[in-house]
Structures are given as structure tokens and as C-alpha cells.
């Protein structure tokens, strides 16, 4: 190496090597810039009386200008652009999280006071104004969603098995995939109308039956289960199927014993998320299940209360002025319980997914 350097004619490269170090802002620079920007905005804003929204907007603009400018001055223009884009990305993330946190905060702060032992163990039977609970609605939601799951998970998984394992791009599977895509977009009220029309045809007008709500929810759930299962089955490598075929294993046994166990974690996760997705549906249940003030355990006979419908009816029910605060409190409490149920299902999906996923033993 030394030899080549000597034989080459001396140029500017040899005398001044390109420096690898550049001045850098410390790691806490963005935090400092944010504090300064929002602090300045708050100071001016409080003096001029802008309100919270104005302060945040001005502070954000200050940060958006200040941090890149500081960075450009110290670190150069490439880093300055990086800081600008970084700030935009971080603030959109915060913007996206804002409604989520606001909703959670609102529901928890308003719903938590309603929660007590009676709230979970009593129904609304014979209750006017204060007191009573939502036991009947919790049971109703559990029953309706459970039946919907029992109907749609087997159908959805088997349809996905057909699409992936048997219908390899043939005409029927293309049509089915298209219909499933369309079904994914069906408004839930239409699913409710379908169930209502079906049960009216069979049992006559004015029918109220919890199983009808389950069927409406199944209509919404099946496409989600099919889609997620399909994706999971496609992830199973063909080598595993070929490995099983090469051992003389018939196709159906390969699917049952090799493909499904390999994809089980994902399938269960997808099904649980589909349950969580439909557990909060209101419109179809409003149409066919109706609402009821006492506990009804029979899904084939009469109306049944469910959490979403209870929230809706308690929040919109008029009645005597002095009862309305209790009704609203009950609605918030029920909303909190519903969120907790859906969140528990999501957590369960994660636990179950990791439990069933193939292990490497490392």
C-alpha cells in the first residue's frame, strides 16, 4: 500500500484525507428542542390567551422549524432534513395515538365509578333509576358471540382450507375469493337485515331471537376468519406438504396433521381477533336480538340484552330527568366492560398464538 502511495503523483486526496467525524447534536437535543418550543408557545399563549389547541399548534410549528434549523447549523443539511422528517413522523404517531388514549381515558374515568359487585351480578329487572347491573347484558354478549364463533370458525377454516389446498386458482376459488372480499365490506346493519329477514320468513314477523344475532355476526365474522386462515395456510411452506406426501401420507391427513398444526397459532389468533371484532357490533343485534331488562339464557326464545345494545339504549333512553344520570353512568360502565372484554380477547389471542406456534427448542 505504501508503495502505491509513493509512486502515484501527489494530489489533493493524499494531503487532506476526508474527515470521518462531524459535529453532532447530543442525544437529548430533540427533547430539549421540544421543551423549549412548547415552553415558549405556552408562555406566549398564556399571556395572549390562545387556549390549549393554539399553544400546541404554535409549539409544534416552532419545533418543526427550530430543531431542523439547529441541526442544519451544527450537523449539516442532510442531518437537518433527517430531523425534519423525523419530527413529522413522530408527531403523526402522536396524533394517531391521541384519539385512542382520549377514548380510553374518557371511558375509564366515566365508567370506573359505575363498577361494583352489584354491577356485575344484577340485571336491570325491576330497576328504575339507580342500582341494578349489567349481568344480563354480559351473559347475552357472551352467549351471542359464542354461538357466532361456533358457527363461523369451522366454516371459515374449512373454506380457507378449500381455497388454499384444493382450489388452487381454479374458477370456483377465484369467485369465492371475490365474494369473500365483498362480504368483508358488508355494512353490519345489512347483515342484521339479512338475519331479520331470514327469521321473519321462518318464524313470522316480530321475531326476537338471540341466535338470529349470532347468525348476523357470523355473516360478518366468516370472511374475516377465511381471510386470516388463508394467509396463515399460505405461510406454511410447500416443502412440508411435499415432505409428508413423500412419506406416503394422503392429502387430507397431510392437511390435518401437518399443515393445520403448523399454522394453528396464526389461525387461533385470527379467529380470536375476529371474535373481538364482532363482539362490539350493535346494529345487527338491535334489529334481531332486541333488548331485555332481565337475564335470558335461552338463545332460541325471545329478546336478550347485549352490551352494545345496552349501551345504546341506556344512552338514548329518555325517561324521567332524575333517572338520566344513572342511565348514562350505566352506559359508560358497560362500555368499559366491553372494552375490557375485547382487550382481554386480544391479549388472549397473543398468548394463544405464541403458545401454539412451532418451537425451535433453542
Amino acid at each position, binding site marked *: 500500500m505504501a508503495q502505491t502511495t509513493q509512486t502515484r503523483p501527489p494530489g489533493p486526496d493524499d494531503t487532506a484525507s476526508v474527515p470521518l467525524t462531524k459535529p453532532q447534536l447530543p442525544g437529548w437535543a430533540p427533547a430539549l428542542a421540544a421543551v423549549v418550543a412548547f415552553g415558549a408557545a405556552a408562555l406566549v399563549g398564556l399571556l395572549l390567551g390562545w387556549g390549549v389547541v393554539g399553544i400546541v399548534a404554535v409549539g409544534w410549528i416552532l419545533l418543526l422549524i427550530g430543531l431542523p434549523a439547529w441541526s442544519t447549523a451544527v450537523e449539516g443539511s442532510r442531518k437537518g432534513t433527517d430531523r425534519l422528517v423525523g419530527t413529522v413522523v413522530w408527531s403523526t404517531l402522536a396524533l394517531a395515538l391521541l384519539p385512542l388514549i382520549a377514548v380510553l381515558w374518557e371511558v375509564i374515568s366515566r365508567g370506573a365509578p359505575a363498577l361494583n359487585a352489584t354491577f356485575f351480578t344484577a340485571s336491570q329487572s325491576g330497576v328504575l333509576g339507580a342500582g341494578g347491573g349489567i349481568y344480563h347484558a354480559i351473559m347475552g354478549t357472551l352467549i351471542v358471540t359464542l354461538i357466532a364463533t361456533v358457527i363461523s370458525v369451522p366454516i371459515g377454516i374449512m373454506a380457507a382450507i378449500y381455497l388454499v389446498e384444493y382450489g388452487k*386458482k381454479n374458477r370456483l376459488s377465484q369467485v369465492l375469493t371475490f365474494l369473500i372480499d365483498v362480504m368483508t365490506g358488508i355494512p353490519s346493519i345489512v347483515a342484521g337485515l339479512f338475519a331479520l329477514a331470514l327469521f321473519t320468513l321462518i318464524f313470522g314477523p316480530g321475531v326476537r331471537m338471540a341466535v338470529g344475532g349470532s347468525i348476523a355476526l357470523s355473516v360478518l365474522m366468516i370472511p374475516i376468519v377465511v381471510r386470516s386462515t388463508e394467509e396463515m395456510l399460505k405461510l406454511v*411452506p410447500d416443502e*412440508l406438504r411435499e*415432505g*409428508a*406426501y413423500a*412419506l*406416503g*401420507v394422503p392429502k387430507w391427513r397431510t392437511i390435518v396433521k401437518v399443515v393445520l398444526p403448523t399454522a394453528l397459532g396464526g389461525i387461533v389468533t385470527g379467529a380470536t381477533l375476529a371474535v373481538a371484532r364482532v363482539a362490539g357490533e350493535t346494529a345487527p343485534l338491535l334489529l334481531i336480538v332486541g333488548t331485555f331488562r332481565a337475564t335470558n339464557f335461552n338463545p332460541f326464545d325471545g329478546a336478550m340484552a347485549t352490551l352494545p345494545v345496552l349501551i345504546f339504549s341506556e344512552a338514548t333512553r329518555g325517561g324521567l330527568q332524575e333517572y338520566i344520570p344513572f342511565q348514562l353512568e350505566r352506559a359508560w360502565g358497560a362500555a368499559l366492560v366491553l372494552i375490557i372484554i375485547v382487550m382481554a380477547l386480544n391479549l388472549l389471542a397473543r398468548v394463544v398464538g405464541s403458545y401454539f406456534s*412451532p418451537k425451535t427448542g433453542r
Partner: protein
Amino acid sequence: MAKSIDISDVNIYYGDFLAVQGVNMTVKARQVTAFIGPSGCGKSTVLRTLNRMHEVIPGARVEGKVVVDGQSLYDPSVDPVAVRRQIGMVFQRPNPFPTMSIYDNVLAGNKLNAKKMKKDEADSIVEKSLKGANLWNEVKDRLAKPGMGLSGGQQQRLCIARAIAVEPQVLLMDEPCSALDPISTSAIEDLIHELKSDYTIVIVTHNMQQAARVSDETGFFNLKATGEPGQLVEFNSTTKMFSNPDEPATEAYISGRFG
């Protein structure tokens, strides 16, 4: 239990595309037959027609005759599942079943077919197969661990153990060492030498030294010309192929003057 395979006038199509044309050869029992040739010339395709695995690919079909021990594989009354129970296969990439332990992976061929067997019978099959695949000493203390936790070479030997656990008559190997390091490759080549006494083995390989080391007979495949179907150029004993081949094309390929 080993059987010979007669292949006569076999044409293999993927849809309308003729992939391999006019293959004639006899794979002898209890011998290792190697298929060599450049990529895309139809070696693996021919190998897969020997146990009807090519049918997994939609649109694949075969003309001609493949006769194993007097039975034509492509007779309409032949059940491909029954064929694959007789003719096992090891793939290019190790593919142990990720949901199963090492023990269950070896027994997969029996368990997936719901064959009833006693515990000690199962244990002896596992031990025999793993010993046959030169893997027993490495895994005997962790048979209940997942098969995916083994190294690549161990996984491939696990797949060989799985294939010989169902006691097939023929063992097909599709580039079994191409994803492995030299030490694992040498372990598998030793294994092929040992298995030869009980099984008819057909191996596809890109490694000509490997073909020379392990095989008794060699088939050289090549494309007729670019865009035309692959064909069997020469089929001869390995010694003759690597010292004094009949076809100039074979010599050119083997000596690296291909092209």
C-alpha cells in the same frame, strides 16, 4: 426389498411445456444412481416422476412408462399415495415438521398414517432409523426436543431417518447436500454408502465429485438447445462416465469445458 426401476420413453410436461423428452434408463437395485447436469435440464423433474411427486405441481403430466419391479407407476389404477410409501424422498432443503419433536419426526410416516404400534416397537424404529441416518449419538438424549432445533446437517439426516423409517424400497434424493457444509455432506455421503446395501438410491447432485464418490451409475442430462426440452445425454457406469465417456458433451461438462 430394494427394487429396480425401468424408465422407457418418458416425456414430462408442465402444462403445454415439454420439460424433458425421451428418457430411457434402468436404475439397478441396491446401487446408487446419480443424475448430473446443468440447472434447469430436468434432473429433479425426472427424479420426481419416479414417485409421482411431480403431480403436486398443477398441470404436470407424464407420457411413457416407469416400471418398478414389474408394476407400471402410471397405470390408471395405481394410487400415488401407495407409490410414495414404497419410494421415499429426501429434499434439497431439510424439512422437518416444525410442530413435532425429533422422535415424532422420525415416526411421522407411521404416525401420520395412523399406524397403530406399541411403545417399544416405536422406540426400536426410532433408534434403528436414527442409527441408520448416523444421527442417533447426537440426539439420543434429546428425542423430545423439537426437530427444528437441530443444525442444518442434522435436520437433513433427520429427514433421511424419517424417510427410511417407513422402510421404502427406493430412496430418491434431490440435491440432499446442496444446503450443507462439507462435514455434514461427508456424513451424508458415508450414509449413502451404508444405505446402498438395503436400498436403491437415486441422487440428483450438482457436485460432480460427489457423483463420482457415491454413485455406481451416472446419468448426464442436458438441454438439447436453449429453449428446447431437456434430455438424457448419456447413461453409463460412473467409472466410465468420469474416465472415458461415450459422448463428447459429457466429457465437456465433466471436465468443465461446458458451454
